[in-house]
């Protein structure tokens, strides 16, 4: 069988984080799940388009931030959507 070129370690981390968000979204109400999936998908794809794949420092920063957001999202009382949106709005301020 044909095989895809091996994914780099950082690529695996990104995909694992994406899987984590999708798994956690399953635990929410159907409406909330749909919203979470839309927001998460849009943000991952936007970053995939706009970030230089060799900008490891920034990618690792985003991975750390994403993992924190995922941990917050796992809290049953948190829907997560507004958190993601707020972070999105203020993201430019985090760039130094």
């Amino acid at each position, binding site marked *: 069988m044909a095989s895809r070129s091996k994914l780099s370690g950082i690529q695996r981390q990104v995909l694992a984080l994406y899987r984590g968000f*999708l798994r956690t979204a399953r635990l929410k109400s159907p409406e909330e799940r749909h919203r979470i999936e839309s927001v998460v998908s849009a943000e991952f794809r936007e970053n995939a388009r706009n970030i230089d794949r060799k900008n490891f420092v920034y990618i690792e920063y985003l991975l750390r931030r994403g993992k924190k957001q995922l941990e917050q999202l796992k809290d049953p009382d948190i829907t997560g959507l507004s958190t993601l949106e707020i972070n999105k709005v203020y993201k430019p301020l985090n760039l130094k």
Partner: protein
Amino acid sequence: MAAALSAVVSAKLGCPPAAALGSWKGSRISSRNLVSMKTMTARRGLVSLRSPRFRVFCAAKAETVGKVMQIVKQQLALGEEAKLAPESQFTELGADSLDTVEIVMALEEEFGITVEEDNAQSITTIQDAADLIDKLVAGGGGKPPAAA
């Protein structure tokens, strides 16, 4: 070459060519075949007859492949008339690595299985996905995903 091989396999297995081709692909990894056939034999009381066992195996495989194709069409928003083959690669169908993650997650829910990270990353074709699904379903290797 592929056509001739398909014909040979079809003749031996007594299956439709499409299913036979799928079976031939699957047979490259003997441990998977053995697991699947053993389970089917135990479950359905089949005995030593070669042909019935292979026929059941092919039918199950074809059913899984068909379901996988349906889900891939949905996930990638392909038209119903899109023609997929078991050896179609997700990347050939326009999927990037994020799409592939979504496809695997959708398959997990459909078949009530959990695909481990390493297994998920080794899936690049529809046949890959169907083989792994049959293995997990037959072996009880996965647990149902957390209830929504």
